[in-house]
């Protein structure tokens, strides 16, 4: 019983939503689901946020390694919660927009979030460099093709590409690096993208059916029924 009902719920909800596409009176049920999901996600956050608090306070109380940072984490969490839930320094009071300019919540967003997030994102530039140094090696045919394709595109995006092959006559312009780069983007790249996208669609269909039919139910922990 405890395990059959969830499988039944998955089956009914999944098949109804697949069919809803074809029946105008219920065609918006898929959108309704996203609202349900959003509401469920808030409740789930009680578990997630609770977990965050529990782990870090435990660490701080037991004076485990790096316990000081745990205190910082908990403080950050609580200050943000207070700022946002009670709308501290918000001109509109409790009825105001939570992200109103000048509110503590918005200030923390601008001062803390934006620089931290943007910098973390910017680290990518460094990792792109290190990946190209160590990972782009012509180990086999596939790796060589990947390497050559990316090298041509990179070359096409510097003035060097034009300087190196600019002399090529117009009739053979496909061998002009910038044109070659464009051609790679539009022809072989497109073919590869299409194959990947069609493959993903079929993979999702098959996976969804396994879930809906209850063939795949490991997420419910029913492996050893």
């Amino acid at each position, binding site marked *: 019983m405890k395990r059959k009902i969830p499988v039944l719920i998955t089956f009914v909800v999944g098949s109804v939503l697949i069919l809803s596409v074809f029946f105008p009176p219920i065609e918006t049920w898929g959108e309704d689901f996203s609202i*349900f999901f959003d509401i469920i996600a808030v409740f789930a*956050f009680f578990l997630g946020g609770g977990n965050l608090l529990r782990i870090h306070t435990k660490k701080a109380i037991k004076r485990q390694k790096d316990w000081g940072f745990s205190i910082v984490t908990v403080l950050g969490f609580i200050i*943000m919660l207070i700022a946002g839930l009670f709308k501290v320094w918000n001109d509109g009071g409790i009825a105001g927009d939570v992200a109103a300019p000048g509110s503590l919540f918005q200030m923390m967003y601008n*001062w803390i979030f934006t620089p*931290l997030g*943007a910098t973390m994102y910017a680290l990518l530039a460094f990792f792109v460099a290190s990946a190209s140094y160590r990972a782009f090696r012509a180990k086999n045919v596939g790796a060589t093709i990947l*390497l050559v394709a990316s090298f041509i595109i990179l070359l096409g995006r510097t003035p060097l590409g034009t300087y190196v092959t600019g002399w090529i006559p117009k009739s053979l312009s496909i061998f002009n690096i910038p044109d070659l780069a464009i051609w790679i983007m539009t022809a*072989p790249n497109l073919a590869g993208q299409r194959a990947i996208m069609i493959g993903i669609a079929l993979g999702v269909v098959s996976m969804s059916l396994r879930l809906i039919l209850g063939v795949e139910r490991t997420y419910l922990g029913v492996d050893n029924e």
Partner: protein
Amino acid sequence: MSWEQTFGIWLAAAFTLGIVSFLYRDNIFYKVCEAIFVGSSAGYWFVTYFWDNLYRKFYLQAFDPVSPHIAPWVGFILGVLMLTRLFGAKIAWLSRWPLAFIIGATAGVYMMFYFVSNAMLQIGASIKPVFVGSFGDIVSNVLIAAGTFCGLVYFFFSKEHKGVFGGAARVGIWFLMVTFGASFGYTVMSRMSLMLGRLDFLFGDWLRLIS
């Protein structure tokens, strides 16, 4: 410049340097930044969920004085069931119901979504005459059609990649590799722009070395 702005810029600069210092190695500045980031962002998201989802999507709808909606209650009840795991093993199994609901709905919605946007449209886009235009166009068209075909051969699971079939699969993976290489090369510029943005902030807004 007001003291708030100055303070904000110095704070932002400190955070920027703290994160970047991770590239050298893990250190106390990075750990502080990480702790602040994790704690405050978790709080930020809870606040956002609270006002957007619980207040606006549930409370305002369910307790609308004119025409209260019933639908949000479904989400609410499933959400409450989610919390049963806090109250011991006796009723914790109820928390699987919302999970089953979410998985079923995701499977159903995504199946049709991916099928339409990825499969149908891409197959439809592939169906077009190849022998049109200049010689170069014809070569490209044939290559696109053949590449898509071979790429799909690569993804076959129930047939061993041997003989002609294996050859097609190999060609398929080559096409995938061109795709990966091209996307990588093409993205480098936008990644560099991100770093440029941060350096611009450090050298310009903070240190005022450049205008």
